[in-house]
């Protein structure tokens, strides 16, 4: 591995890791369902970047792109479904507060 490549890997890796942290932080801390989904999207961004990075470092940008594209599509569907769920919750609760959906416990 060339030195440049290592630096790129390191830089992008750290940045993606930071975004991962942001995403997880959001998932844990937020009380808004929609923002939780946005946090999910942020996480996906970081992961996408990781995959592209991996393809770039190994010279397999083709494969990585193929994976990333698939990933993006899947995540969109997930978000759509999740949004559907959130909207249904909203129609019940008239709220998107996370704390309103802690009925199932114990």
């Amino acid at each position, binding site marked *: 591995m060339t030195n440049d490549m290592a630096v790129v890997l390191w830089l992008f890796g750290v940045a993606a890791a930071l975004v991962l942290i942001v995403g*997880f932080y959001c998932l844990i*801390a937020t009380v808004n369902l929609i923002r939780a989904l946005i946090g999910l999207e942020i996480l996906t961004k970081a992961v996408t970047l990781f995959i592209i990075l991996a393809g770039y470092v190994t010279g397999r940008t083709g494969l990585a792109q193929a994976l990333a594209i698939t990933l993006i599509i899947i995540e969109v569907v997930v978000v759509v479904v999740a949004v559907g769920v959130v909207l249904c919750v909203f129609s019940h609760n008239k709220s998107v507060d996370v704390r309103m959906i802690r009925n199932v416990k114990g």
Partner: protein
Amino acid sequence: MNEFSILLPIIIPLVGAMLVIIVRRLGGMKEGAALLATIFSLVTAIMLYGRELNYSLPWAGFGMEFTLRLYHFSAFILLAVSVFAFLITLYCCSFMRGKSYGVWFYFYLLISAAMVNGAVLADNLILMLFFWEGLLVTLFGMIAIGGKEAFKAATKAFIIIGICDLCMMFGIALTGYLAGTMTISKISMSPGSLGSVAFIFLMIGAISKAGSMPFHSWIPDAAVNAPLPFMAFLPASLEKLLGIYFLARISLDMFKLDVNSWLSILLMVIGSITILAAVMMALIQKDYKKLLSYHAISQVGYMVLGIGTCLPVGIVGGLFHMINHALYKSCLFLTGGSVEKQAGTTSLDKLGGLALKMPITFICFLVAAASISGVPPFNGFFSKELVYEGALQRGAIFYLAAVLGSFFTAASFLKLGHSAFLGKVSDANKNVKEAAPAMLLPMIVIALICILFGVYNHFPLSNFIKPILGEQRLAGHEFAINTTLIVITVVVLTGALLHHLFAVKITGSGLKSADYIRYAPVFRGIYNRAENKYFDPYDIGLKIVNVITKTAWRIDRAVDWIYEGLTVRAVYLFSNGIRSAHTGNYSLYIVWSLLGAVLVLIVIMKSV
């Protein structure tokens, strides 16, 4: 007569018992069947007497064989049993008339006879125990048929004897193990340390059967409720015969007890205490049957003491006393039965002046009472003298106990005779008549034998008793009656008479002649406690058992609590803890997952 005939003493009563059950609905037939069976067995016993027979059948295995052995000793006991069985059945023919439980009484009586015969004949310890312990059932049945309250006494008797029999079972197991055989005639060993243990357990069985202290307390209780012939039959005669027979067997044949052995001392101590304590209780009784029953205990003491001396003279005395006691005591119980039957009560308060109403009964009573008190020339006198002599040789203290016992025996019988047969005729007894002939006959016969055995005491001694010990043991021993002792005895008896007269004078009635002892300063407390059963080993035992069972119950509950309390609670505690951790907040779950991931990574990457 072939070997098979040895089975007859067992089979005949059994068949008789079955017959009694079968014919019970035909009026009068049951008595006939019972009498027939006892007559047959008496005849068999007489024919078997003097023979030596062995018989064995395959049985349970493991050392348990159905081995019977007829020899001098067993033949003698067999004979005695048959005589008593016959006489008491005869007596019952009249006594039991009109009582609902008659059938069962005959049934049990015959089975008991069979069991006793079997136990006596058995030459295998287990077989003997089989018959021996089998008596428990008939004992229970015979007491329990006596009425509503009788079952309590029956239970008590059953528990005491049952426990002692179990002890004997243990003793037998130990003996069999030590001796390597179960055949009684082959066992002959000196009691070592384990052997002593075995001996003690066997002895418990033997003396409990004989009714010695401390296994006696069921007898007075049973006396109140059980049918009187039962008392005459089992505690007074058969069980004494059996118990002392076995005691003699273990201390003479199976274990070579010698004079220096501590077991001998133990036996003598038990004997002495039994004599004294029981007679003291007898002295104050105010019930015909109860008084007799205490004497039934007291007299055992002489036999145990006699055998315990380990001296030929003592042993002979003990065995002779055994047969004598069986005679006079059953006679006494039978007189009691007659009184009960005729006067309707046995309470001395309500009796009195029966001598004129029932002269024959009274005479029989006199003979038997004189005999038990050791008045010469009745049989009791001679056997007691032998025991005295043996006791004296082993220690003056034992002799003293024996003589003192004799004194109180005489005193109590004077009291009994006085209050029951002499004195004023109470109103209730106005119409009392003499008992029926069938009841009188056995009494008369027994009383006669008492006199015969007394006057011609050499006949039973040399024919029945001495052969039991065998020539070697007797070698060099002559049973000349010691004149000094006779004098002392006579003095003692006279003392008893004087005492009685004196007591009657100060208290004013025969019944209360012993009351001053009863209420004497120290004795008062002891008697009070005794009457409240403070000293009853049974009650003490039950208290101990109570403590044990309470403890056991607590342990049991504690164990149960481990399952029902501790485990369940612990599981629910954990469960609730875990459940309350699931708050429904997904952020928490994410945190768990991430922490879990960290842990997983730590483990996975540790090895790098």
